[in-house]
């Protein structure tokens, strides 16, 4: 009883102990905050990866893929049919993307993904990340007549407006077509007047000039003179199915593609986004055919939407297009039978199903040796990334736990002081019959209560901090004059934070253990004090 009473009184009267309470508090709060933010980032990322990749991917090892997706889907259903919620065939191939921006041809390396827009939404969150509300309902490769999101639908109201998206879609396309037509007329008007025509213009054949005219109208910036920038003018395929004088860009579109948003946008430090291409602009995609030796093949496409998963790796790499068009482009079909090839089948399993088990079953049923097919889960696909995040979290936790350990040394030092200060009281207690273990108990429970108070306050502070982390980040940014959470770097406007109760419990338990462990030494010293010497101490 006296232990509790004294420990309570010491807690209330020894203000020096506040220092150790504060250090425990800071340690606990920081650990909770960091863990929550790390967990927030991790789960956000996992959700996105998972949403994009789908649960299990059944894919061919060869880039040529495997024929007859329907047969494979049937087989898959036979093997793990009761566990499957949806399937969709996929063709995935590296490609080059070209588009016009101001006066330049921008080129980037992309992963071209042919999807079946009807079944794709069964297996992944593809449509959820599109910019047009109707496309989110049912993805379509038809250009929409305006109505694209001006605000990021995944972010809160604090996200800045994307002004350029206002007239994306057909209005933008019509405007650009008009501009290009005007440009072409200007060029045509200027050409005869030129005193000495430039040699390339003379060298150009009438045929190529004719076929390149519509291609030249791709330019998003609109000011680019057409002929020089079309790299595929001479290529038979590049002329495109609709190439010809009868193609009116103001009324017609090429096959639709969905571009990852990071390919065509950049973000300034105030969060404002700028787009180099919008839905309605035309792009050229070039890839290789499946034939050996592979031939370059390319075609023109119209951007119908932008894809924003907020995983920069995907947003900067993925271009989605209708699977049939891609199969044609790459000649992925048997000309005699008409059976088409696909690269992969993405599988969505029913909730609660162990995806590793599904993977193993499929691998065993199709190709136990893994020569032609490989089956992997979304975790396997992003294994190194997820493992890296896990390791980062672990290392951070170890480092941060050292903070609490430092707090423990603070407690140790302060307790030693208190024991010295309380020497006489210890003598008194012993003269009243308090046992060694009783005296030790006073200081151990004192340490425990310091730990309890410190971690309790730290818990509250940490949770509050996590709750208001964005406001705090904003405040800090305002004070220091530079944004703490720069939206230029991250795809999130807000700092994601997820509080995991078990982690919090572990942190608090660890802090308590350290507080008690740090008080063992001073408590032992107190217990060992000789009562006579303690009483003589004046």
């Amino acid at each position, binding site marked *: *009883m*006296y232990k*509790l*009473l*004294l420990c309570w*009184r*010491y807690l209330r*009267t020894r203000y020096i102990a506040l220092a150790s309470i504060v250090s425990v508090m800071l340690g606990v709060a920081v650990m909770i905050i960091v863990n929550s933010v790390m967990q927030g980032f991790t789960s956000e990322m996992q959700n996105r990866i998972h949403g994009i990749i789908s649960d299990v991917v059944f894919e061919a090892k060869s880039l040529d893929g495997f024929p007859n997706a329907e047969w494979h889907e049937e087989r898959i259903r036979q093997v793990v049919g009761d566990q499957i919620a949806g399937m969709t065939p996929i063709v995935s191939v590296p490609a080059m993307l070209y588009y016009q921006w101001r006066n330049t041809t921008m080129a980037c390396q992309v992963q071209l993904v042919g999807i079946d827009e009807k079944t794709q939404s069964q297996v992944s969150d593809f449509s959820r990340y599109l910019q047009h509300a109707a496309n989110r309902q049912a993805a379509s490769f038809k250009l929409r007549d305006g109505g694209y999101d001006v605000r990021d639908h995944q972010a809160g109201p604090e996200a800045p407006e994307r002004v350029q998206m206002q007239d994306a879609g057909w209005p933008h396309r019509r405007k650009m077509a008009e501009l290009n037509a005007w440009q072409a007329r200007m060029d045509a008007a200027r050409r005869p007047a030129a005193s000495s025509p430039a040699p390339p213009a003379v060298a150009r054949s009438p045929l190529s000039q004719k076929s390149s005219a519509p291609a030249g109208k791709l330019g998003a910036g609109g000011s680019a003179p057409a002929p020089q920038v079309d790299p595929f003018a001479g290529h038979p395929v590049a002329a495109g199915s609709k190439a010809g004088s009868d193609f009116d860009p103001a009324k017609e579109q090429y096959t639709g593609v969905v571009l990852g948003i990071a390919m065509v946008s950049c973000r300034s430090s105030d969060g404002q986004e700028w787009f180099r291409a919008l839905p309605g602009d035309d792009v050229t995609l070039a890839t290789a055919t499946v034939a050996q030796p592979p031939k370059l093949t390319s075609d023109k496409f119209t951007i119908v939407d932008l894809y924003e998963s907020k995983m920069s790796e995907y947003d900067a790499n993925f271009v989605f297009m209708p699977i049939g068009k891609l199969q044609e482009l790459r000649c992925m079909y048997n000309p005699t039978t008409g059976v088409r090839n696909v690269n992969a089948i993405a599988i969505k399993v029913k909730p609660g199903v162990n995806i590793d088990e599904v993977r193993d079953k499929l691998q065993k049923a199709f190709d136990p040796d893994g020569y032609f097919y490989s089956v992997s889960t979304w975790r396997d696909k992003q294994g190194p990334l997820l493992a890296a995040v896990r390791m980062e979290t672990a290392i951070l936790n170890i480092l941060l736990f050292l903070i609490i350990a430092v707090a423990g040394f603070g407690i140790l030092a302060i307790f030693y002081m208190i024991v010295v200060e309380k020497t*006489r*009281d210890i*003598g*008194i*207690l*012993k*003269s*009243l*019959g*308090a*046992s*060694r273990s*009783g005296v030790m108990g006073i200081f151990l429970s004192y340490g425990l209560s310091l730990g309890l108070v410190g971690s309790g306050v730290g818990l509250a502070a940490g949770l509050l901090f996590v709750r208001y982390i964005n406001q705090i980040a904003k405040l800090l940014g305002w004070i220091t004059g530079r944004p703490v959470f720069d939206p230029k770097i991250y795809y999130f406007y807000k700092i994601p934070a997820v509080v995991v109760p078990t982690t919090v419990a572990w942190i608090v338990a660890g802090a308590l253990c350290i507080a008690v462990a740090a008080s063992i030494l001073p408590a032992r010293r107190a217990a060992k004090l*000789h*009562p*006579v010497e303690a*009483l003589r101490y*004046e």
Partner: protein
Amino acid sequence: MNKSPRYNNANMFWSTGVPPATEKAGETPALHWKPREGDRSMVSANARSARELIPPKNGSVPGGYQISTVDLYKSYRKGAVEVPVLCGLTLGVRQGEFLAVVGQSGSGKSTLLHLLGTLDAPDRGQIHYDGRRIDKLPAAARDHLRNRQFGMIFQFYHLLPELTTLENVLAPLMISHGVLSYLRHRGEHRARAEALLATVGLGHRLKHRPRELSGGEMQRAAIARALIAQPDLLLADEPTGNLDQHTGQEIIKILRTLNRQQNLTIVMVTHDRAIADQADRMVRLANGRIEARDER
């Protein structure tokens, strides 16, 4: 106050070396007396019931002393020098006696009291309490003895500064009881502590901290604390040493009354002759021995 059987187990460790019962009251115990060999081992071997080992409450060993020392030696080290404090001190105190020990500073008065109170162990010699040897008891038994049988008063009062007067008085009970049993008996403990404080004239100072009390008040609180566990022996180390004469007299009056009314044995160390004169008996300590006796 009920003493739980748990604590009585501690008595199993007590030796049964009985001081010579043949001696007359007031006489010095024979210096050649030695406890019989094997006394300690006999206790554990015979495994007597705990009941038999409880010292008789308020009843002294017939013809013997309540507390007595035989040939006590104690020295302290000060750096490399060994300073002898007690050199063969032999002393006996009877049940209900008020003994004053006087002597110069450094004559070993306080050391004697600490040894009697089992706060310290002698280098040589024996201490007997109620017929049992207590100087070599294990720590738990000594703690128990200090908590239940001995009350101690110090020159500097030694109240715990964080606790109120009432809590200071209750401290021995808090030590002897676990949390639950203390809380169960809280009401009766409180009542007893308040009654005790009222008898020493501190009924109006229950909620005050020691630093808000005067020296005399603190010493009264210390006396109340020493009495709360209903001890058989009160050890007072210069109880008036820090008080003015008038307050000192009041304290002595309280002790005197306790001694008379409750037949409480008191051993008081003092250097003040006037205070010592009020005791039943006085012994003078010099050079680590009893130098003079005043039987009166």
